[in-house]
Structure formats: C-alpha cells, structure tokens
C-alpha cells in the first residue's frame, strides 16, 4: 500500500537517477498545455453561467466551481476513456471534460457534449435527461457518467456497484466518485467505501475539500485534520493533494487510479481547495458574512489558472506573449471578460449555449412518462 501522502504530499518522489517519475512529469508539452486549456474551459463555463444567471436566463441554483477547477480538470485528465465518473453538484464542467483528450468534438469520445450540458442547464428538451432533473443530475450510461441524486454521497454505493460489475466481467475500468468534504459525514459514504475495501473494488473517492459545507466549516463535519484520514479506518490509501495545482491533483489521483487498476482496491484523494463564492449563487451575500474576508482572500489567492501558468512558464512551455495572453485568473465573474479566454474556449461555450437556446422545452405530457420501463 502506498503510504498515505497525508504526511508526504509536499515531498514529491525524486525523478532523478531512475527513481520513478511522478505521473505529471511524464506529460508532454502538448498535454500540459491541454490541461491549461481545460482549466480555461472549466472557468469560462462557470463565469459564463454566473453571468447568464444574473441576466435571469437560468433557473435553479448555480453551485460555482470557481477556484476549484484544478480538482475537476486534474482528477479526470488521466482517466481511460471507459473509466467511470460520478460528478457532484460543483463539478458541472466534468461532464464535457471527461475524455476530452479524445477531442472535444469527437462524437465517439466517452464524454458529453457542451450542447447536451447547456441544454440541461437551460432546462431544455435537448438535455440527455430532457430536463427532468436539474443541473448536475445528468449523466450518461453509455458515456460512463453516473447520475447523482441530491442526496450527498448517495452515488458512492452505485459507483461500487458499477465497479463490481466491471470486475465480474473482467473489465479493468476505474470509477471516480466526487464528494465535498462535508458529504463524507454521510452514512453511505462509510457503507460504500467499506464494501469497496472489503472487495478491493477500483473505486477512487475524490474529496473536494473546499473548507466549507454550505455554512458549516470542515472542522464541524470531520474530526481529523485531513479528510483523507478517513481512509485509515478502511486500511486504504489516503492521499492529500494541493487542490489548486492541477499537476499535483493529477499526480495523486493517478497514483490512486493505478493502485485501483492494479487490483489493490479503493482509496481516497483529498484535494484541498477553497470555495470562491457562496455555497450556491443564492448564498453569495450571506457567505460574505459568515466567512471571514481574510480567509476568503487567502483561500482564493492561489488561483489554479495562475498556478498552472507559472508551472508552464517554468517548464518553458509558455513563453513570450503567449505566457500572458489570456489572464483569466484572480478575477471575479463580474470582472473577467471574454477577452481573458482563448477564443476557442468562448466559441465552444457559445455553441453549447446556442444549441440550448434553440432547443425546445420538453412537452408537458412528458411529466407523466418514463415512470416505468414498458
């Protein structure tokens, strides 16, 4: 069992002298730049929806993933196309970023299109769920994305079930589940991970520790310093990643994924991050009161786009003008503009929104349909 990196997360293994390299060190320049692009895609999706919501064009609650994009992007980048994910409310960009390496516009890739996701957000019939359940509750059986309910941690048992079926079939997929740190207090979190550990199922639970569960700080949800310590209760690895650093997230999740794919069973990867806004957009004003502004400023200080940019510059992958061409980081949704993003990022989102706008509402009668398979 790899040592829980709760202690060692800041101590990367040396890559010199034939010692194993960290997974991120094996990434090519193109891949590194692609990761950077994914951060833009995730950020732009979020800020654009915040704007659209403010313009009154959206219903439902928007759970911003602002400042948490490195977790979303870094944790799924290294997956195989057929691996499964189970995103949660704050992970909307994950739906279209899954298997994005095979081309955002590749019709055969194992991820959803921006059109499907925008249709969902806009509550239109073009949504894969035909707008029957809201926002992040979509998914796709064929693309290996598990649909969540609102009940937090409620999909981890299903993740274990998916993994069990694959294992029986001799299929070597990994299942990534996502949960906030607060959600780890739920009973099914325990039941599902316990079962997965007993049966050594390839289920990796990524905990997005953004320090707050709605209006409750992490120390009232979890008694240990690292949420990853929950792993110790199951004798499974618990990793701690710097959730602002897409490469560190990638490294820790890949370690967990390879551990799982090798048949060693489940693990927990805690990514330490910080929620930029309110719990949902309805909570922005109150959050400004219940959270110390200093804490908030500090939490937002390491913008994952900035962190990634710095790394790419250090690596020599971003040079000259390109290094500062699109500065989306450290700007609120109200400040940032389209010019702060690569045009193809804006374009991709525009295509999604256009599709959504043109997609009809579902027909009223659909409300009575699909209660049962006929």
């Amino acid at each position, binding site marked *: 069992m790899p040592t829980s990196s709760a202690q060692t997360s800041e101590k990367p293994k040396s890559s010199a002298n034939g010692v194993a390299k960290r997974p991120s060190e094996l990434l090519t320049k193109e891949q590194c730049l692609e990761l950077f692009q994914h951060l833009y895609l995730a950020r732009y999706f979020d800020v654009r929806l915040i704007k659209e919501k403010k313009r009154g064009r959206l219903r439902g609650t928007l759970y911003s993933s602002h400042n948490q994009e490195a977790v979303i992007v870094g944790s799924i980048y290294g997956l195989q196309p057929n691996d499964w994910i189970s995103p949660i409310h704050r992970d909307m960009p994950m739906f279209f970023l899954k298997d994005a390496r095979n081309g955002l516009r590749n019709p055969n890739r194992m991820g959803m299109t921006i059109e499907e996701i925008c249709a969902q957000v806009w*509550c239109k019939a073009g949504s894969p769920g035909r707008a029957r359940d809201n926002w992040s509750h979509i998914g796709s059986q064929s693309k290996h994305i598990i649909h969540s309910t609102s009940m937090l941690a409620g999909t981890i048992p299903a993740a274990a079930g998916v993994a069990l079926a694959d294992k029986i079939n001799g299929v070597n997929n990994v299942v990534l589940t996502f949960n906030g740190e607060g959600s780890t207090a739920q009973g099914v979190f325990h039941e599902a991970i316990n079962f997965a550990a007993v049966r050594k199922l390839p289920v990796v639970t990524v905990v997005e520790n953004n320090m707050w569960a709605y209006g409750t700080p992490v120390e009232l949800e979890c008694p240990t310093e690292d949420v990853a310590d929950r792993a110790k209760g199951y004798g499974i690895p618990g990793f701690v990643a710097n959730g602002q650093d897409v490469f560190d997230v990638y490294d820790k999740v890949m370690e967990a994924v390879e551990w799982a794919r090798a048949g060693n069973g489940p693990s927990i990867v805690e990514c330490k991050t910080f929620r930029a806004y309110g719990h949902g957009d309805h909570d922005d004003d109150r959050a400004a009161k219940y959270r110390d502004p200093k804490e908030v400023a500090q939490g937002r200080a390491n913008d994952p786009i900035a962190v990634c940019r710095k790394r790419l510059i250090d690596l020599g992958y971003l040079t000259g003008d390109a290094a500062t061409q699109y500065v989306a980081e450290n700007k609120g949704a109200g400040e940032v503009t389209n010019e702060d993003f690569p045009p193809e990022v804006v374009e991709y989102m525009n295509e999604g929104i256009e599709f959504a706008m043109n997609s009809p509402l579902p027909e009223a009668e659909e*409300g009575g349909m699909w209660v049962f398979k006929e």
Partner: protein
Amino acid sequence: MAVAQQVGTVKKNYLQALNEALREEMARNEDLLLLGEDIGILGGAFGVTEGLQEEFGGHRVYDMPISEAAIVGVAVGAALNGKTVMAEMQFIDFISCGFDQIVNMMATYHYRTAGEVNIPVVVRGPAGGYGGGALYHSQMNEAWFCHSPGLKVVCPSTPYDAKGLMKAALRDGNPVIFYEIKELYRLNSIAEELPEEDYTVPLGKAAIRRSGKDLTFVTYGNNVYHCLEAAEVLFKEHGIDAEVIDIRSLVPLDEETIYTSLGKTNRVVVVNEAPMTCGFAGEIVARITNNAFDLLDAPPLRVTRLDTPVPWAKPLESFVLPGVDKIVAAGLRVARF
C-alpha cells in the same frame, strides 16, 4: 399614515412566524435544543433559525454534520436524557436519509417502553413543489410518516398557524414531523399580524378557510390557496359555492370538521400534492367512505400529484402537480354528479 405603515411593518410572513416560534420556545424552555445542518453560523438555508445561535449560544443550537440519521438519532438520545429537540432537515426530501431513525427508533420509543419514555422531538423542514426544485427539492412525503405509527404530522399554511403549530408541536411531548411549505416562506400576500401574547394552535384541529354549501374541498399546505382560487372560479363562473377545509394536522386528523361540512355539502374533493397512491388524500377519502358513506351524494374525488416524481422543467412540473384548473374540473365533476 405613519401609523398604518407601522402596522404594515409588523405583518409577519410564514418564515418569520416560524423563527419567532423557535425563539420564543427557546426562551421559554431552556432544555430546548436545535439541531441541523447550517442552522447556526448560517442561520439555516432559508433562515428559519436566523439569529438563534447568536442569541442562545452554541450549546443550544448545533451545526450538525451532513448526517440526517445522526441528527434524528442524536435528537432521540437527547430527548431520552431530558431535552426537547427541534431537528431540521435542510429540505424535507433528505428525511429519507434518516428514515430508519425516525420510523423505527423515534416513532416507537413511547410504545415499546409502555409509556416510560417520551420523545419530544420536532423534525421539521421545507417541503413542497411548485418552485422548480425538481425531484429532490420538491417532495411532500408526509404519507410515509402518517403510515408510521407514533408520529404526529403537521402542515401549516399560514403564518399564524406556522407559529402556533410549531409551539404546540414543541410542547406536545411526542415526535412530530413538521412540513413547512417553502413556497409560502416569503409570500407577502399571506403575511399577517401575529398576536403579541403566547398562543398555540392545537394539533388535530382543522380550519375552515372558506364557507360554502355545495361541495367541500379538503386540503392542506400549498393547495389551500389553489383550492381557494378554485372555489372563487367555481363560484363566479358556475355559481357553485365550495367550502375549503385546511386540515393543518394530518395525524391526528380532525375528522369531525370534515363530516360536519359533508353533512352540509354531501360532496367532497380531496387535494394534496403527494403522489396519489397511498397518499394522505386517499386516506381521507377512505375515512370518509368508511365513516360517512351515507353523507355522500357523489364519489369523493382526489386531485393529487400523478404517481411520478416531481420533474424540473416547468411544463412537466405543472403537468404532474395539482393546479387550479384540475381542482376546478374535479369540483365541477362532483358538483354535477
């Protein structure tokens, strides 16, 4: 005019009424605790507990982990040890995560101890559809608990009742599941002045919201207002004079008021927003036919949610939930039977 404004400002909405009830009961009973997710620092997702942790302290108002089963179970244990507890479900939909603790631990404690142990716990939370909350933020799942012996079940539709029933529930000594209609929380049109003095609304007493002689609507929660609207339509457009009964409390149920009304109208439509099968509307229909069959000149109809979840998209949501049109149609059917 300054005075009128003054009066205007003391009108309380449904949410404020609940907040007042909790505040007054907290002051009145120092053994009352509040447990729930985000109810302290934040003051609750909707603000029902706003200001209470500040006022009464962290030893009275607890921000709980996201653990509905623990919230209920801890409430039961605290009750066993002398406390009265309000346990909030952030949305009543999440009560399913604490289901076993409610129906098997809490509901039965008095029964299985032959009355030794009382469990004064009120489990409350925002409930109901019509707001685009979709499957997991729209539920009215009261029938599960009406069907679980040992629980009282309450659902106020006005600020006055919200406050009075909350106080009654907290003093009742039995476990109560308290359905708050979140679409009413901040509805200005139903805001009202509340009595200065302490008052309760007894569990098990219905209210007649509109008198009528031709047919009876029996309902509660959101649908009280739909039935009142439907009654206006029936009266203005068809000259049919409907009585509207707001039962307010499901367990115990004030059957007397229903039968008295039926003695006059001989026709009844029961309206609620839960799925039809095994819902409380059906229970009322069954009781009426069991106990007051002779009073019926027409079949007692139900207008309820279809047997579906509550979908997100507005056209679908309206399709599955009861609305004024459907209620009018049912009213016409029984009136013309």
